[in-house]
């Protein structure tokens, strides 16, 4: 149950940071609605952010393992 709580909190923080980064990157001056190019940018940004998250997590874990092997 603790693990579930942690996973939920983690996913929420990931989503919140992703929303922030993609909003800052994709929306210039906010207008009356999300136009087509903004919507596409957000969809793409969201996919790339998840890719980047995976790359960063992999790099971190492999570094942890190398450091442990050197001890």
């Amino acid at each position, binding site marked *: 149950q603790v693990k579930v709580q942690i996973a939920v909190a983690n996913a929420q923080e990931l*989503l919140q940071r*992703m*929303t*922030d980064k*993609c*909003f*800052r990157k*994709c*929306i210039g*001056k*906010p*207008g*009356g*609605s*999300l136009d087509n190019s*903004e*919507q596409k940018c*957000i*969809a793409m940004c*969201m996919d790339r952010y998840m890719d980047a998250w995976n790359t960063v997590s992999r790099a971190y874990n492999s570094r942890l393992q190398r450091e442990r092997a050197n001890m």
Partner: protein
Amino acid sequence: MAELGETGEAELQCLVEAEQQKAHHFIELCWDKCVEKPGNRLDSRTENCLSSCVDRFIDTTLAITSGLPG
């Protein structure tokens, strides 16, 4: 009004705080996007920008969470 128990109070506090954190988050983000130089009054262009900023941010949140499974 019935008195809140300890748990009820804590939950209420969490809820209200979460809402207020959202408002603080919006002002942080939208101030940077919309206000360049504070003038004698908030002109209508800046005011529209601020309102739209909140709405577009919520649209973005909904777009992102609707793309999720579940």
